[in-house]
């Protein structure tokens, strides 16, 4: 698709953050995903033009990083942690049951385009295991049933709020813009910490 004048000007502002423009390649790829949903050929070409790089150079970077998708994902992209700790605590069971529940494989998308699933590596929330991410927002302490409920609600367009995140789950494209460094003004929403994060502090203060 063609990009609007406004979108191209946002790309220029992203480039201007850096002392050298090639450094802007990652936020620009996130930005393309916020418009197209994945890294399109058109996006790669425009980034190449902007940064004076060959499309092969942009593609080489894009394909290195797993968050850049070469084909569309769902509006709600579900990542289930199956690294050792989460896997043992229930992540494996969750992953298997969700694939079956949605009748898709790893990296698959539901027919309605609403939900996609991939198994992910450690997402830095081990004290909340098993962990599920949707559009890279935290859904802590999941079970097979809670994750089924989560994906069903997402397919119906009404996902619950993240455990530690904004009051309402945003779409894949909307969150991709945040990763490109474009503020959505939601930083003050949601909790400052969950219970495990606060446990040591509570114990230090003499709490039970």
């Amino acid at each position: 698709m063609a990009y609007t004048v406004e979108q191209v000007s946002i790309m220029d502002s992203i480039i201007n953050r850096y002392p050298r423009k090639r450094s802007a390649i990652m936020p620009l790829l996130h930005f393309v995903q916020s418009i197209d949903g994945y890294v399109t050929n058109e996006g790669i070409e425009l980034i190449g033009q902007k940064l004076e790089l060959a499309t092969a150079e942009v593609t080489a970077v894009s394909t290195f990083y797993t968050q850049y998708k070469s084909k569309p994902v769902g509006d709600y992209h579900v990542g289930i942690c199956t690294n050792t700790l989460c896997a043992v605590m229930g992540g494996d069971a969750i992953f298997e049951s969700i694939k079956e529940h949605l009748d898709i494989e790893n990296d698959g998308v539901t027919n309605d385009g609403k939900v996609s699933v991939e198994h992910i590596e450690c997402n830095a929330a081990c004290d909340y295991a098993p962990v599920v991410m949707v559009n890279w927002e935290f859904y802590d302490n999941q079970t097979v049933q809670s994750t089924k409920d989560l994906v069903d609600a997402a397919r119906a367009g009404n996902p619950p709020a993240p455990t530690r995140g904004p009051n309402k789950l945003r779409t894949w494209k909307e969150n991709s813009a945040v990763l490109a460094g474009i503020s959505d003004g939601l930083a003050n929403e949601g909790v400052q910490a969950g219970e495990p994060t606060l446990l040591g502090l509570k114990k230090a203060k003499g709490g039970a």
Partner: protein
Amino acid sequence: MSKLTPVLSANWDQKDSFTFEAYKRNGGYTAIAKALSMKPDEVIQTVKDSGLRGRGGAGFPTGNKWGFIPQGDNKEHYFVVNADESEPGTCKDTPLLMANPHVLIEGIIIGSYAIRANHAFIYIRGEITHVVRRVQQAIEDAYKAGLLGKNILGKGFDLDLVLHVGAGAYICGEETALLDSLEGFRGQPRLRPPFPAIAGLYAKPTVVNNVESVASVPAIINNGVAWFTAMGTEKSKGFTLYSLSGHVNNPGQFEAPLGITLRELLEISGGIRTGHKLKFWTPGGSSTPIFTDAHLDVPLDYEGVSAAGSMLGTKALQIFDETTCIVRAVLRWTEFYKHESCGKCTPCREGTWWLVQVLKDLEAGRGSEADLDKLLDLCDNIMGRSFCALADGAASPIISSLKYFRQEYLDHLAAGKCPFDPMTATLFESAGVK
């Protein structure tokens, strides 16, 4: 009396702890006035004297890193924060930044002033959207308050700070891969020397520090070296965040002096999952050789853990009870390293692939005892033979698990399958829900 020492986590229980107002209310942004009235070299000396060591895994003295930056060289200097927290088990920087991003920013201002950098970056992993929001907002608020930008506090010091969001590559937590990624390339490690202090970002002198290391600096400046060195052990000074996860009744973050033991942390937190017993654990993430119940009293500081045959790493204490199959756990970590190997060095790229093949067979009860020696032989050909430590990390759980649990590997072969029921290890089993 509790051995815990909340400093970084002291105000996390305030609902608005992540805001500029809360940070100021709690005494934040007072260390920069103090630091900016000191000479930059004095700031470096203070951090050196504190004995603060890198909290991202390697444990290198932070002040020494700062001191390696050549001064008077007429070059741009860069201050880069490694917020690419991805080591399996590690989950301290992420909650820290969610609850209080401003303490990192204050540390960055002080560090940049000390090494005479006018440009700083935070390289944050891309899979934590809400933390990205919080840090981005904190940077904007710091600019609005005149704490970033031109002529900070009227002291003639300029600093621009950019948040750079990664895109899902563990290897970018390795400092030279991080720099390549920040320059806009595939994140692959560089051969050292030259070290980043000489040729880092854009080939200019660069400091790369972990989030927790930098966030510890404001408190050191405010409270002094003696306050900091009064905590911890002889060569491991100060406090740090220990992250307890896995088969425990109460997982979470515990800020304590370096040198606390797992036994003490378990006593404070509420112990191993009720009705179960400790089988194995990592002291500092999956790249650190595993420990067993024989290591409950090892002092969790750099020297203590090292003397017991592992590494303090990121203080990510992943606890596994007797329901966990060691072969399954090690296979899964190995699959992780295979997936995250950047492919630059042949021993790591090919070796991790072969390790996975052998371990898959062993977990399924196929293969022979000779495969255990093959695993060790592969590890021997991988460790220390690549540009970075990823492959060393891959070998750690394999070698250490064979040291402590060789018989369990053999039990798989004897049974012709995995003798464990994975459901008994899940939390659903203990909670009675599915």
